[in-house]
Every structure is written in C-alpha cells, then in structure tokens.
C-alpha cells in the first residue's frame, strides 16, 4: 500500500509536501548557522557560510520533487502499462468483461440517478429538517392523517409554543380569463406560508402580515415562465381570476413541493372559522431547541383542550406531524426505489462474478507463467497488485461505457412520465450520481480482482511448475473456486428472477382483474366552472345543454358526467348506514360519494343490477340556498355497499342514512349498480353511493363513449363548449384506457425494469456456466477420448460431464430459493394479489434456470464428444 499513500501525498497533498520540504530545508539551514556560531563565527559570517554550504536552494527542492514524482509514476505507470498490455493480448476477453461491467455499472448508475433525484436531493427550503407537515388525527375513527379544519388550525396557530411558525394551505382552482382561458391551481395560503417554509420570492415580495384580505397574488415560477415568458414586468399586473382582480406582487423560486402551484392567493385570519370541514393542509417550523417529542406532547395537550371545548366537532381530536423528507416521495415510492436499487445491485454483482470468473480462467491458463515469475523472485504482493490493477483497468473501462449507457437511459427517462416517481424530469448524472459510479467502480474492481488474486499460488510453486497444463483435475482448488462462483451467480439470478416473476404476476393480475367499468372507446376530460355556475342553476343548464349537444354527434354513443374522475380522482367519503337498523358489527362503512348524471352509468360502462337509474325526477340530496330541504332523497348504491348494509334483503326501496355522524340525511335506495375498481386497480371493489346531480350538485368530469378513436371527437367537443361558454377551460383530456394505464405506470415500470434486469441476469449466468464448463471439458478432452476409446457410450459421458456442470447450478438454485423465500417478505408492499412465497413462481424460475443451465452445459459437452478419440488422446 506504499504506492497508495504515495499517490495520496503527491496528488492530493502536493501543497503540504512542498511546504514541509521548505520547512525542512529552513531548519537545516538554521542548524547549520547554529553550528557555525557555536564554533565561534559571528552571526553574519555564520549565515553567509551556511548559505554557501547549503548551495542552490531551488535546485535541491526541484530534485526532491522529481524524486517524489518519479517514485509515484514509476510504481504506477509500469504496472498500469503491464496490465493494459496483458489485456491487449486478450482483446476478446477484455471486451467481454468491459461490456458486462458496463451493463452492471450503467444500470446501477441509471437507477441511482432516479433514486438521487427522488429521495436524496434536498428540499428548496431553509433548514428543512425542522419543517413538518401537521395533520389532525381521529384515532377513535381509525384515521391517522386528516387535513385540518380551519378553526382547529387557527387555534393551533394562536396557542402553540413549539413552533416558530405554522401556516396553512387551502387547495383551490380558479379560471384565469385574460387571454386564453385556463384553469389554474390557485391555492389560498395564510400570509406566513412562505416565511414558514423559508423561501423568499425571486421577484417582488412576499405577502405582508396584514394582507390576508388583499387582492394580491404571488405566481409560481413554472407558471410565470410558461404563461408570461419569465417577464420581470409581471409585478403590478392585474389578473382576472374567477371573475375577481388580483395584483401580482411576487414570483416564487422554482422547486417543490408546496411552491409549485400556479397562483397563490392570501387567506385571512378569521375569528369564527368553520370547525367541521377538513380542508386545510398545515406546515410548521419547529422552534429552535424544541425536540419533536416535546412538540408532540404540547400538540397532544392542545388537542385535548380543543376536544373538551368543542365536544361536537373535535371529539377524539389529536395532532401529529410528518417529517418534510416525506414530502417529495411517499413511503411506497421509497420502498419501490430502494428495492430497484437492490435489484440492480444484484445484477451488478452477477456481472462482477462473471468477470471474476473470466479473469480466473485466464489466470489458470497463466498458472505456469505466474509460477515462473515467483520463482524468479517477483514478490507475491506485486502479483496480487497486478491482478487488482488489471481489474481496476477493466472496471474503469466498464465505468466509461456504463456512463455512456446511463446517459442514454437518463435521456429517455427524463421525457417519461411515471406517476408516483417524482422529479423524473430532473434526473441527471449529477455529482452525487458520479460519486456513486466511482464508488461502485472501485467496489466492483475489488470484487472482480478478489478471486483471481486469491488464486496466485500460495503454496507449491514447484507443483505449479511441474503441473502439465492439460493434466486433468490438477487444479482442483481453482476448479472449486469457479464452481462456487457459478453457484453464487445462479443464486443471485434466482433472486432477481423470482422478484421479477412476482412483480410481473402481480402487475398482470392488476390489469386482468375484473374492473366493473369499460375502458375502451371512452374519452375523459374535465371542465372548470366559474363561481357564477353555482347560482340560479346556471351550472345545471350548461351540463344539460352540453350533454344534449353531444348526443347529437353520431360519433358519440353515450355521455355523462360525475364529480370525481374514476381511478385517478380524489375520494370524497361519508359514513353511511341503513336507516332502519344500526350496522351490525363495529362502526358503519365509509363510502365514497359520486354525483352523477343519468347518462353516466352507460357512458362509463357500469351495469344496473337492480331497481332503476336516476331520471328527471331525482333531485340533489342538498337543499338549495333559501329553499326547504328536499322531502324525498334518492340514491343508488354499489352492489358491495348494498350487500353490506342490507344483507339478505332487497336493498331497493330501503332507506339509508347519509353522512352518519355529521348531521345525517335520510335517502331511499332506488337502484343497485355493479361494483367497480373506481378507487384504482389496486384498491378492490369500491363502496360507492351515487347521488343525483342538479342545481346544487354540478359534476364537472365528463365521460364520453365513442364509436371510434376517442381522441378523434376532441375537436368537435371543444367546438361545442366554445359555443356554449367561450371562457370555459377544458383540461386533462385523456382516454379512459390511458387513465387506467397511467394509474399503474409505477407498477409497470417496476415490472419492465425487473424483467429486463433478470433477462440480463439469466444471460450472464448462462455465460458464466458455459464458460466454466467449456473450460473444464476442454481440459478433460483426452480423458473423454480415452473413455470413448474404451467403449463408454455417448450418453454416459454426457451424464458425467453435464452432471458435473449442473451440480453447482442445483446448489445455486437451492440457496437462491432459500434466500428468496427469506427476503421476499420485504417485497410484500410491492405486490398485489400474489403471495411473496408464490410456489408456482418459484417452481417456474427454478425450471427456467435449470433448463438454461442445462443448455449452457450441453453445448461444450457435445463439442467434446464430437472430437475423434484418436485426436483427443494424442493431445496428451
């Protein structure tokens, strides 16, 4: 390791080397002067004589530097040259190794770059470690993360001492109507919001403390760039948002989360705020010196006070907070990415094993050369270093190729959109990623070099020298080492194949499950209504005439509207119970509610299982402002919900209690609708209450069933809307197929990546098996020839050789199976509808590996048997 420390000193601490040298020479001079003065010279003379004796200072320094550098370069350069020369002697093998390593390193780098962007890159906020998201809890109802009610937020805001600041964010959308109408996200935030996060506008100013009611707006960076071209004159501009005017006062820096919306409006501190609707997200900055535990204790005390003061709304209230590191990626994404990182690590490991195997084979061929070298006095350490350096050269070559591969993959990834994987468009080969690549390059070169280095003959140079190159079974030790490598390789490949198989099966289960709704030939889009649509039934008028105009189009077979888009929309829920009897076991079910037009069921392909569909006579369950509550309410239930509420009864005609525990409205069940995976493919049949639309419930998500390509009707739909209301923005236009496929894209990515990885793993493993066996068979050619000459049948020889090749494979499959069974429970959160220990997957993977291995063995054995025994024997 002398040369390593020398590299360190000379390359990285060059300055320090120079200054110590300076100091050393100065101290020498001083001692010289002291000596002369002790001999009686006066200080002037002593100094002069000493300087003369020392000679030319700079020349000395230069000589020393030369020597240092020389020592470094000599050691490194000659050995590097040697190993490069050795590799050039065998270009095929070098290329093979470099390619395998490039695959391993490139794939790891790509996955890590996604990992880095999603999980490692810091948030754009000052001191983000002290930032938290605050949530309410209602543990008595099993809810551990609920948004804040406005009143609870202000109570917390006014009383907490654990937080330097707390602020709230209220989701909101608005129609921007100057120029091209556009639906924009326009959340309302309390004036301290950005100060709490610790971001300052890049342009203009933040909301001031007294601006809660002012008509001012701050723009998000992306929106400012795309809509206004990043123009600095934006400050002072007046925007028309949902028929109100707002003056732009600032522009936020780029970044996420919380600050990547389009327009921010201030929200006032209201003394008599609402306590019963949970609509506010809250963030807080822990005060310095306050531990999270202390803050939680204080919050708990506050929650108890509030619950006591407001028993009706705040019963069972609690507060909790989540660390800011979870803001970018939810836990499921973290798990998935970590898992992919492990998977790619396994792939890289297999590549390493293969390269080690090739180097080992080459080392065997050079056994005698190495023995000669040792006999001639080469230090063993030097030989080990040589092997290691060779592996380093190969890995560096692999890393360069791998980086090129990763750059190409990253380029593709940046344009892909996979919900659930954040910041994919910001993935890149940034410094941390490159450090990672450098790290794994070093590790791989150590791993690849390890086995060949161990093999440099430790004992018995004489044996090695004596050993005939073709003597069968002589290097039993190395043979065992290589078999062990094959075993390791097969076990690792087994792990990858099993996880790929499980994830793939789970993905296919997702896609092929019964969905309830029909997705083909369906178009979806959403409209954003201005506030005025809530008055005088204007919204209903619009929806009615819009749907009527659509039905006139011969390309459109049916159309309808709903308040929440299936599969990708948010969920609005309520507690629901049968009116006549209380729910049998535990608390009543929590069901999603959807406001629909009568045509919706047909448009989305849901069957009516009993009773009737909604019609003109069905009115919304809520009262219009200033009107008496409706005397008779009607609802439809999804089949699963109906069975739950009215087991063994016909639900049609029965009465239910809607929003149980929050007022409670009585409603008659008029129909039962088929179950569907309305909450997403991985959620199971949804419990849904369908409510009729009307003047106080205007759905804005539209579904259109078409005769042909759904996207083809978009222009005519656009034209119809423009004729009805030119200021109405049309958004999120997608086919239902795309909606569904997008909702499972992270699962799809997992399967695609894993299947690709395991394909490569299988390829690498079979190459490894093939390499080992073809080598050992070629060494046994004469033995086989002899056996055949003595009358052994082809099949018996095949049995011996293939059996020898397959033994390590079988051991590998067993070990891999055991490890996979043990590790697969970590896979559970990624699987849907498949058990981690799915016997058929394990069996299929074992069979696949076994057959591939048998093929890899068969080829070299067959070749050996084809050789003429006479020739084979003459080889001896």
């Amino acid at each position: 390791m002398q040369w390593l420390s020398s590299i360190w000193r000379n390359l990285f601490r060059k300055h320090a080397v120079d200054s110590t040298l300076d100091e050393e020479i100065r101290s020498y001079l001083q001692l010289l002067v002291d000596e002369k003065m002790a001999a009686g010279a006066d200080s002037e003379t002593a100094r002069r004589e000493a300087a003369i004796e020392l000679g030319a200072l700079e020349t000395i320094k230069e000589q020393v530097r030369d020597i240092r550098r020389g020592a470094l370069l000599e050691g490194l350069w000659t050995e590097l040259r040697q190993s490069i020369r050795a590799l050039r002697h065998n270009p095929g093998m070098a290329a093979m190794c470099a390619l395998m390593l490039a695959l391993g390193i490139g794939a790891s780098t790509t996955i890590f770059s996604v990992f880095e962007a999603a999980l490692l890159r810091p948030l754009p906020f000052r001191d983000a470690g002290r930032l938290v998201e605050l949530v309410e809890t209602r543990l008595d109802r099993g809810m551990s993360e609920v948004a804040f009610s406005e009143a609870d937020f202000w109570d917390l805001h006014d009383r907490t001492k654990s937080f330097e600041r707390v602020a709230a964010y209220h989701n909101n959308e608005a129609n921007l109507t100057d120029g091209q109408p556009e639906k924009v996200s326009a959340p309302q935030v309390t004036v301290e919001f950005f100060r709490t996060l610790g971001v300052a506008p890049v342009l203009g100013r933040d909301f001031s403390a007294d601006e809660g009611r002012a008509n001012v707006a701050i723009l998000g960076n992306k929106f400012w760039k795309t809509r206004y071209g990043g123009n600095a004159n934006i400050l002072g501009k007046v925007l028309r948002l949902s028929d109100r005017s707002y003056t732009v006062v600032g522009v936020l820096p780029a970044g996420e989360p919380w600050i990547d919306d389009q327009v921010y409006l201030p929200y006032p501190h209201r003394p008599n705020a609402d306590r019963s609707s949970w609509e506010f997200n809250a963030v807080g900055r822990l005060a310095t010196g306050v531990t999270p535990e202390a803050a939680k204790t204080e919050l708990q005390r506050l929650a108890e006070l509030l619950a006591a003061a407001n028993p009706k709304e705040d019963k069972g209230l609690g507060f909790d907070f989540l660390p800011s590191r979870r803001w970018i990626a939810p836990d499921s994404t973290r798990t998935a990415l970590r898992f992919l990182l492990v998977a790619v690590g396994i792939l890289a490991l297999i590549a390493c094993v293969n390269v080690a195997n090739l180097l080992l084979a080459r080392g065997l061929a050079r056994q005698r050369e190495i023995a000669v070298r040792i006999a001639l006095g080469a230090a063993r350490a030097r030989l080990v270093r040589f092997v290691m350096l060779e592996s380093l050269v190969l890995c560096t070559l692999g890393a360069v190729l791998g980086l090129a591969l990763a750059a190409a993959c990253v380029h593709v990834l940046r344009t892909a959109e996979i919900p659930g994987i954040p910041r994919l468009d910001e993935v890149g080969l940034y410094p941390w990623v490159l450090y990672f690549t450098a790290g794994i390059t070093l590790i791989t070169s150590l791993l690849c070099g390890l086995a060949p280095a161990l093999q440099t003959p430790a004992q018995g140079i004489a044996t090695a020298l004596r050993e005939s190159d073709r003597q069968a079974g002589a290097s039993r030790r190395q043979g065992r080492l290589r078999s062990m490598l094959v075993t390791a390789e097969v076990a690792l490949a087994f792990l990858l194949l099993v996880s790929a198989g499980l994830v793939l099966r789970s993905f296919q289960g997702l896609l092929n499950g019964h969905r309830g709704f029909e997705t083909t030939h369906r178009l979806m889009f959403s409209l954003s209504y201005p506030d005025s649509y809530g008055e005088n039934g204007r919204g209903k008028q619009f929806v009615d005439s819009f749907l009527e105009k659509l039905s006139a189009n011969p390309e459109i077979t049916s159309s309808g509207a709903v308040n929440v888009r299936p599969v990708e929309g948010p969920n609005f829920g309520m507690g629901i119970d049968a009116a006549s009897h209380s729910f049998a076991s535990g608390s009543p079910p929590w069901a999603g509610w959807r406001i629909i037009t009568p045509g919706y069921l047909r448009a989305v392909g849901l069957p009516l299982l009993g009773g009737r569909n909604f019609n003109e006579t069905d009115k919304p369950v809520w009262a219009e402002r200033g009107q008496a509550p409706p005397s008779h309410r009607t609802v439809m239930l999804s089949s699963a919900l109906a069975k739950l509420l009215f087991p063994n009864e016909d639900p049609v005609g029965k009465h239910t209690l809607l929003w149980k525990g929050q007022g409670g409205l009585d409603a008659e069940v008029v129909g039962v609708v088929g179950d569907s995976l309305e909450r997403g493919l991985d959620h199971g049949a949804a419990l849904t209450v369908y409510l009729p639309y009307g003047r106080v419930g205007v759905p804005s998500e539209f579904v259109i069933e078409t005769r042909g390509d759904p996207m083809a009707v978009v222009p005519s739909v656009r034209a119809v809307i423009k004729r009805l209301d030119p200021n109405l923005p049309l958004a999120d236009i997608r086919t239902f197929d795309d909606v569904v496929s997008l909702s499972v894209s992270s699962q799809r990515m997992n399967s695609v990546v894993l299947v690709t990885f395991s394909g490569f793993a299988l390829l690498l493993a079979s190459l490894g098996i093939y390499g080992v066996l073809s080598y050992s068979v070629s060494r046994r050619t004469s033995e086989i020839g002899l056996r055949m000459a003595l009358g052994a049948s082809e099949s018996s020889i095949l049995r011996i050789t293939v059996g020898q090749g397959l033994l390590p494979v079988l051991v590998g499959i067993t070990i891999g199976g055991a490890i996979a069974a043990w590790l697969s429970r970590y896979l559970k959160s990624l699987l849907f509808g498949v058990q981690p220990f799915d016997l058929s997957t394990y069996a299929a993977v074992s069979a696949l590996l076994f057959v591939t291995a048998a093929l890899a063995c068969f080829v070299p054995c067959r070749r050996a048997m084809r050789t003429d025994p006479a020739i084979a024997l003459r080889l001896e």
Partner: protein
Amino acid sequence: MPPSANIALLQGTLDVLILKVLALEPMHGLGISRRIAQVTKDTFQVKPGSLFPALHRMEEAGWLSADWGESENNRRAKFYRLTKRGLRQLKQETDNWGRISAAMAGALEIP
C-alpha cells in the same frame, strides 16, 4: 579529502551510509551529514544537494520514516528513523558490500 567524482561512481554508497547511521538512532538531516563525515573519517562530506533527494527517495521506498521533533539545541527539525523494511535493506546491503569489498580486495590484491 574532499568528496570527489570517484565516490559518486559507487552507486548506493550514500544509501547504505544513511541506513547505517540511522540504525543507531533517529537523526535530522544535518546530524546525518555530520555523522557520515565522522564515521568515514571525513572521506564523505554529504552536501544538502545530494542528501535531501536521497532522504526523500528512501522515504518513498519505505525504508525511512520522518517526524518533526526538537534538535539538541531546541530547534524544530525533521528527524528520520529506520523502518523495519529499512533495517532489512541495511542487512542486505551490508552483506552485498561485504562480498563486493572482499572480491575487490582479492582482485586488486590488497593485503
């Protein structure tokens, strides 16, 4: 006798001398140079121009290690000491020199 070109011909002379001198105790540069002069009865006067490169080369080779310390008159100075490897080197070189000098003496018929 002043150091002359002849002496430089004997490659490795300086190295062995430095190793030998340091085998007794750690020493700083000037000390090494003075001690060599003393033990060779002033045959070798090692100048800084050859001393420093030699010391650093031997340090690179791992024969010597260096530390800062106090000189006998309380000056800060860099002290060199022999490493295990240096000691081995000294033994080997000593053997070599023994053989060479015996051979030379025989050849040149020095009594």
